Structures are given as structure tokens and as C-alpha cells.
């Protein structure tokens, strides 16, 4: 953007000046649009911190800065190690561990579904599928990615849990499954994130230059060798990036997981038990009437802040992988 107005042979003043002015205006408008996202992020960050502060310390950051008395209502030790989460109970408990467990368990379980199936799908699409098959399969996957998450939630509650998991639980383990279960949450979030893994991984694999494939085929490599020993290693940072995105999506996933896994905050090893994720807790509070300033209202922000930090760290990790990915093909 050079906007200097050096005098020169007929290239200043008049039309040139108008162009320079309109360039500046356009630049300002575009910059304004771009700043909206940044400002929103900053605002969210501030609101989260501000309210979370009053959850832990009984005063907002703004109030603390102006000299309000600070009294630690909830200790970090209790928040991060307590095993009972009931901020709204008559005898409240502020141990977030059960809902952190719920979120992490669902995330890990979902990763066990989405990562193998998504990677295999990506390899199939990129290396094995004929153009006709690919032309049909890719749009189907994109449809899967476009289904609203609440629909997945009802799919879990109406099909996965009662029709698939119910009989398995009662016949094999003698457990009567309820409306919700952790396993159902894992499966539905896993299925939801398959398209994310497969489509981003497939992009990374397709970006591997054909020269590498041809080099391997010319050495007598089979398709399987080429897929696993050339294409996958060469695209590994892109593939990892897709895993991280899928995991961070699973952490933040709300509607489907709430309907699938339930509202009962507990730490359990039984996959047919109901668990509550951090997002499910926030939904359960949001649908009730938590008045501004109450502890349940503030707890929403504490949990929200933790969730935000978890997905943020995932995104930062993803950025690092992306950079490495770009370095590979100089």
C-alpha cells in the first residue's frame, strides 16, 4: 500500500489523488470487518475471565481492580480435584473433575472411533477409490458433516442407545441401560467427527506429489506400501492436524453429546453409565433460570473458561502442525 504523493511527470493529483483516497477507504472498511472477529474474541475472553473471577474470588476483575475485597469462595484445589460437582445443590460442591472426566472420556472415546475410520477413509479416497467412487463418496461425507448436531443427538437417543447399545448391555453384561450412556456419546461424537478427519486427511494426502507415488510404484511397491510408507508419512502433519481438529471439536461438542450422554456428573468406568460433560452442564444451566450474579450463573463462566482454554490449546497445537506441514514441501 504505497500512498506517498511524490511529484512526478503527470502521475500526481487529480484522478491519482481520488484513487489513493478510495484505496484508503476500502482498506479501512476491510480492516474494520477483519477486526470484528478479533474484537469478539477479546470480548468473549474478557467476559469469561471477568465472571469466572467472581466465581472463584467473589468479585469481578473490574471490581478487584477498583479495590473490592477479595474472598476466595472456590479454591482451585477444590475445582480441579474435587470429585463432586453440584454448585447449585443445597450443600454445594465445586469439584469440576466429574464433568472434566465426562468431556475427556467422550473425547478419547470419540477419537477411537473417528481417527481409525477417518484415516482409513482418507486413504481409500486418496489412493484406492476410482474417480467415480470418489465422486459419490466425498459428497456423502460432506452431507454427514453438514447434519445439525442436534439431529445426531436424537439419532443417539432414538437409535444408538436403545437399538444398538441396549441389547448389547442387557444380553452380554446384564445391565439395564438408561436413556443416556457414555458409550452412546462416544459413538455419536466419533461418527460426527469422521468427516472432519477424513476430509482434512484426504486433502493432505492428495497434496503429496505424484512423483513420490510413482517413485515408489516403480520400485515395485504395492498400493498398500505406497499408502502406508509413502503417502501417510509424507502427509503426517496434515493428518495429525485433522486429528487435533476432530479432538477439539469433540471437546467443544454440545448438543449431540448432551442428548447422548446425559446430565449425571459422575466418574465411572462403566460405558453404559450416564455422564455429564462440561458442555452438557452449561446446557443444563442455560435451559434453567440461573439469575445473573448467582453462583450457578458464575459457574457457567468458570466451566466455559476452562473449555475455552482446552480448545484454544488444541488450536495452537494445530497451528504448529500446520506450519510443519507447509515446511515439508518447499
Amino acid at each position, binding site marked *: 500500500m504505497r500512498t506517498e504523493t511524490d511529484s512526478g511527470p503527470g502521475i500526481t493529483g487529480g484522478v491519482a489523488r481520488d484513487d489513493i483516497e478510495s484505496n484508503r477507504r476500502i482498506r479501512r472498511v476491510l480492516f474494520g470487518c477483519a477486526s470484528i472477529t478479533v474484537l469478539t474474541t477479546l470480548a468473549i475472553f474478557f467476559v469469561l475471565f471477568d465472571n469466572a473471577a467472581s466465581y472463584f474470588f467473589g468479585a469481578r476483575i473490574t471490581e478487584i481492580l477498583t479495590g473490592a475485597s477479595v474472598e476466595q469462595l472456590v479454591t482451585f484445589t477444590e475445582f480441579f480435584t474435587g470429585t463432586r460437582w453440584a454448585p447449585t445443590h443445597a450443600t454445594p460442591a465445586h469439584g469440576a473433575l466429574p464433568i472434566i472426566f465426562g468431556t475427556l472420556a467422550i473425547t478419547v472415546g470419540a477419537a477411537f472411533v473417528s481417527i481409525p475410520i477417518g484415516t482409513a477413509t482418507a486413504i481409500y479416497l486418496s489412493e484406492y477409490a476410482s474417480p467415480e467412487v470418489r465422486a459419490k463418496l466425498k459428497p456423502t461425507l460432506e452431507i454427514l458433516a453438514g447434519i445439525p448436531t442436534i439431529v445426531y443427538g436424537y439419532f443417539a437417543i432414538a437409535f444408538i442407545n436403545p437399538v444398538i447399545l441396549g441389547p448389547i448391555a442387557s444380553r452380554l453384561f446384564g445391565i439395564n441401560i438408561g436413556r443416556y450412556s457414555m458409550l452412546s456419546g462416544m459413538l455419536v461424537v466419533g461418527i460426527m467427527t469422521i468427516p472432519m478427519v477424513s476430509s482434512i486427511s484426504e486433502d493432505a494426502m492428495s497434496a503429496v506429489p505424484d512423483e513420490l507415488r510413482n517413485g515408489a510404484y*516403480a*520400485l515395485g511397491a*504395492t498400493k498398500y506400501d505406497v499408502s502406508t510408507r509413502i503417502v501417510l508419512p509424507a502427509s503426517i502433519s496434515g493428518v495429525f492436524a485433522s486429528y487435533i481438529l476432530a479432538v477439539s471439536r469433540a471437546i467443544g461438542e454440545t448438543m449431540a453429546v448432551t442428548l447422548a450422554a446425559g446430565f449425571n456428573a459422575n466418574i465411572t468406568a462403566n460405558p453404559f453409565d450416564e455422564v455429564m460433560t462440561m458442555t452438557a452442564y452449561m446446557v443444563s444451566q442455560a435451559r434453567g433460570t440461573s439469575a445473573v450474579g448467582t453462583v450457578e450463573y458464575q459457574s457457567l463462566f468458570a466451566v466455559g473458561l476452562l473449555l475455552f482454554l482446552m480448545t484454544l490449546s488444541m488450536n495452537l497445537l494445530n497451528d504448529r502442525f500446520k506450519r510443519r506441514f507447509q515446511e515439508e514441501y518447499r
Partner: protein
Amino acid sequence: MATNTNDDTIITTGVQQINTNERNRPDETVVEASDLDVYYGHDRAIDDVSIEIPEKKVTAIIGPSGCGKSTFLRCINRMNDQIDVARVEGDLYFHGKNVYDDDVDPVALRRKIGMVFQKPNPFPKSIYDNVAYGLRVQGKDDEVDLDEAVERALRGAALWDEVNAKLDASGLDLSGGQQQRLCIARAIAPDPEVILMDEPASALDPIATSKIEDLIADLTQDYTVVIVTHNMQQAARLSDKTAVFLTGGELVEFDDTTKIFENPNDQRVEDYITGKFG
């Protein structure tokens, strides 16, 4: 991976017969094309080519751009299979066995016929792993001493002295000429019979080119080399036999290199070589 076990039975059956029966012939044919046509969709890239490529000699294929030289080369190890629209008609024999027969596994074929490409294409792996790749995918890493095989291949490609101290470095960190010699090392490591080279020096500077050319001359002690080149001086310097393809995928003349360059039969070949055409 089933191909690991039966690659020999498919390809070498014909080898034994021909080796014993025709040993006395001065030029033993390794690769023979007979009335070979290749189409890309509806376009004909190779037009009725018949040629006999002799063993342990350098056969150069020259001709103007788009004349089907590379296409012909890729027919020999069936790399054209990778191109969806490519269709091959006619016969192409490797030691008397038609490589387009249904019972031929292209994977097994490519283990006998190595290839070096126009643009150096080392894998984004270490130098060592690049050279060992062929042995590993061919399941030979159990039979041979891998370290020894890698060293032999790198020496064979005249690269050992430059890289022996940094075998763990990435193949991508080498210079263009070194990368191409790495690719040659990679191709000879599994000890194929034939090495196809598709303009192997066209992306390299003159010094790197002359190293590759020296190397190709040495390779004929053990291998049959078929080289596609744009560079007529290179063909004249390097090859024993020269095939001239002209536009339309037609093989116009195939003879001893000296004959082609000094006294070609076909006027079009003379025009092409003297620069009047193409």
C-alpha cells in the same frame, strides 16, 4: 503384499528358456515391443511400434516433445497403469513374456525393471531409507545385509563418498544432481535387470549431468539401460543403440547409434538430427 512371494514365478519362467537357447546371439533381446499402440482416451500416443532392446547395452530413445518417448518407456514397466485414461494395445515382451498378459503382476514386473524419473523424486526420508525402500517393500531386507546393500547401491551411483557421513540426513537436503544419483541408487539397490531413465539429466546443471552420464556408462556392466533424452549429444555419447520417435508416436528408425547419427536411412531422422525439424 501377496506379490512378495510369487514375483519370481510369474516373470522368470520365460527367462530360463531364452537364456539357454539364445546365449550365442550377439545381442540378446530383453525387452521387445511388437505392434505396440498406446492411447490416451481417443488420442494415439504410440503408433504401431516394434523394437527389440538388447541386454546390457544403453538404448537411447530420442525425438521431439510429445512424440511418445516417455509413454513408450512407461509401457515397459507398466507405469502407464497409473494413468486412468491410458490404454495399451499390441504386445510388449520382457524376456519373451508378454507383460500385458493377465497373469503378470505389474508389481512383480517393476521389481525387475527399475525406473529413474525426469525430476529427482527422493522420498521425504533419510538417504539410507530412500535407498533401502525398494529392498524393504520387496521383502528383501531379510535376505540381504541392508547396510551393505545400501552402501553398494550408493557406490554404484557414485554418491557414497559424498553422503557416507550423513546417511541419516533427509534425501531432500541433497543438491539436485545428488538427489538424482540418490534416485539411481534407489533404483539399482534391489538389483533389477533393466533400468528405465526418463530424461534423467534434463533438470540438472552440466556438471551434474556429466556425472550422471559417466554413471550410466558404468551401469551397463550389470544392467540394461533404456534412456529417453531430449539431448542428442547425450544420446550420441552414451548409447549403443538409438531409437528415433517422431511426432505421432511413430518409431521412425532404430539402429546402432553410430549409424543413426552418421548415416540414417530415413530422411526425417537426418532432418531431426541436423536440427532441420523438431
